[in-house]
């Protein structure tokens, strides 16, 4: 088990390195840098000005060296331009060359500086991630119990009316992407055309104070899309358990149906959905990006869109490191959890 985890961690690090390099490479392509220069300095720069702007800030160098600098394994650049201004990657703002350390990168805990928000990447990412964590928390609170209840109710009597109605509902929710259910919710519950106006169409105010009125729609929008999938997996697992030999034995012993479901079937039926729930996290990340854009909730997904839209290289790298680790860690937890939950594997 220990060796397994160590190997998985090794693969995880390798994946993260590869992925950040891909992001780094794509954001550092020449047209992207030119766009960055023009948005940062001035839209009406001539081509030579763009080149010198990029030169002076160390952008026009080998991509591997720049990546090494970002990681913190290559000394940070120090460049003096024609007017005698000295710029360096590791020079703190307002400081001089003497203050600068040789290496400054992720390994030294320096995540870079965001060109859009004019703030350190680490500070932005942690604050935004905190906001998104609240969103995720409420989504999980709604989605997991909801999906498990739907799945168990549908799976306990396969083919019954209840099963068919609930299965239809879960297919319907998996077929509704967030940007469809989101706009339908906004149209029904917030617009003046329908006139219900129960909730807020924007979750901006939820950054300071989460209330039922401003947070219900974003949470429901994300939860609904994931719910159908988990419910279908739970249903499949439940129907499989309900046809098992030991359930028939229990029924022949005269155990009541309620007790069979609650005490005999439920525990075994919930092993498979656990892995599915953990593997849903990467999908939730997608949902979070869409919903935060739609409801204007300035969390992690919103930051991703801003960073990507403005080619904010270091913020984008920070964001992708975090999201890649979320994906890989949930995969690891789902594998380990599966082993612990399943007695057949645990004991052998």
């Amino acid at each position, binding site marked *: 088990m220990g060796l397994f985890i160590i190997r998985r961690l090794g693969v995880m690090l390798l994946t993260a390195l590869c992925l950040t390099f891909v*992001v780094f490479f794509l954001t550092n392509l020449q047209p992207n840098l030119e766009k960055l220069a023009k948005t940062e300095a001035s839209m009406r720069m001539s081509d030579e000005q763009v080149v010198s702007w990029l030169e002076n800030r160390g952008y026009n160098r080998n991509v591997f060296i720049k990546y090494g600098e970002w990681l913190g394994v290559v000394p940070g650049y120090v460049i003096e331009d024609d007017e005698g201004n000295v710029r360096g990657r590791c020079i703190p703002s307002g400081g001089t060359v003497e203050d600068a350390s040789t290496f400054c990168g992720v390994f030294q805990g320096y995540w870079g500086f965001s060109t859009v928000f004019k703030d350190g990447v680490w500070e932005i990412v942690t604050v935004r991630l905190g906001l998104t964590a609240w969103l995720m928390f409420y989504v999980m609170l709604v989605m997991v119990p909801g999906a498990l209840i739907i799945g168990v109710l549908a799976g306990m009597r396969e083919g019954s009316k*209840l099963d068919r*109605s609930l299965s239809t509902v879960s297919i319907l929710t998996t077929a509704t992407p967030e940007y469809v259910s989101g706009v339908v919710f906004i149209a029904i519950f917030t617009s003046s*055309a329908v006139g219900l106006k129960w909730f807020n169409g924007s979750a901006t105010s939820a950054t300071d104070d989460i209330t039922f009125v401003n947070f219900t729609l974003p949470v429901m929008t994300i939860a609904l899309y994931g719910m159908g999938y988990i419910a279908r997996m739970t249903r499949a697992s439940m129907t499989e358990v309900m046809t098992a030999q030991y359930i028939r034995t229990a029924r022949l012993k005269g155990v009541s149906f309620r007790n069979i479901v609650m005490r005999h079937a439920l525990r075994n039926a919930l092993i498979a959905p656990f892995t599915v729930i953990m593997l849903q996290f*990467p999908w939730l*990340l997608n949902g979070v990006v869409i919903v935060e*854009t739609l409801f204007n909730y300035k969390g992690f997904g919103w930051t991703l869109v801003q960073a990507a839209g403005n080619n904010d290289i270091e913020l984008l790298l920070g964001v992708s490191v975090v*999201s890649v680790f979320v994906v890989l860690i949930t995969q690891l937890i789902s594998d380990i959890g599966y082993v612990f939950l399943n007695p057949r594997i645990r004991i052998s």
Partner: protein
Amino acid sequence: MDNLTWTGSLGTILDPILFILVTILAISIVVQIIMSLFVEAPTLQSNPDGSLIARGGAYGLVSKVTNWSFLGTVAVLAAYLIGGVVMPYGSAGIVGAMAKQFLPVWIALIVTYALSIYYKRRLGLYGKLFDSTVGMIGFGLVMFWVFTAIFAGVFDLIATHDPLAQEAVMKNKVPGTYIRGAEDEGLWPHYLLGGDNLARDNFSRMIHGSWVVVRIAPLATMFAFMVGITLGLPAGYYGGKLDTFLSFLANLILAFPVILLFYLLVTPEMTQTGLPSFMAAVLFLFPIIFVTVLVNSRFHTQPPKRNIILGAALFVMVWLYLSLISQPVTVIDFLPASMDLFNIPGGILVVFVSVVFVNSPTVFRIVRGLAMDIKTRDYVAAAQTRGEGPWYIMLWEILPNARGPLIVDFCLRIGYTTILLGTLGFFGLGLPPESPDWGSTINEGRRLLQIYIHPVLPPALALLSLVLGLNLLADGLREESLKD
């Protein structure tokens, strides 16, 4: 001419009936579900004379009410459509006018269903689909949009206006608004589903949006399958280092958040660098490799026959491939214009490539898993003993036996691709901003959503119904293929 109401003169009779029936239906379903938790399900009792009776009781009564009110609702809905088609324009309201516009689609659907049901015993898995209600509903929804797309995109039939044309007076007008002076200009007299913020016709935009999806989604999914199968079969069959390497690559792409990848790949700057063109050159190579290996592994013992088939197939495919990847103004531009069959706009190509790129790793994982499972079967061992080559075994022994799950996944994946296309439109990536595709329309309309809901709901519901149809179709196919 006046503005249209939703159901016109038909509505005065049918609307109250529909309302009552739907209420009864909803109540009876809820009652039935609550009762099923407490009351034993009705059982069939066999009589000594061999006949069966259903012991109904209260539960049976409610279930009868559900069935009849459901049938009644369907009948009323059909009456709206038939009334709309039969009655003169305008008297059956917006619903009737739309039903009339969709007439070619109705005819095509009826013909498809009649032929398919008549010949269903000879049509294999496709015919079996018509044994399952869920599958039939799903297939109906999918074919509705496919026919709509073809009639609108190829024959220019269903849409009432040009999806890009603007009528200044119609800005944000509600559904059924009459265009003043439309007859003089030879325009359709109404905006059936209202106008959007740029005064374009919502109905026509929704119709033309289906053509964007139907052109891209199935083809992109097919390419993703070609890539996934060509790489997944050897990974599953050989295992070892090759499998480790390819799986690592697939997991690498899967670990990327899809939207981040789209934001990195689908930008005008990225099209300038030519990266999408190179990716297209690599990804579109896979179908050629696939067909070559497929034909060669089957006919390599009969060289003359192989050469003829392979030569013909390769000639067509390589020409298509070259004219596909060779685009004027981009990095790859080598084919003289006289030989270049067609050009794809850069925006569409990059959307296509990135959708294929995102989908292939998942297909790879599915195919790899199936291949690992099937390679332990006896018929594979028999083929190995016969001395068949590895590629013959992979493509002619393993692949046909993995078709069931692959066909089901293909349907689901077209739905997922549709969602991805909508996501791209929603973030305003790739497709031109005035494009009538559903995602872009939703994105445009959401800014004024709190005041005007009519520009957003049609594309949203259209996308929902198409994806739902594909999901139901996949469900029906899975059910029927499991029965074998």
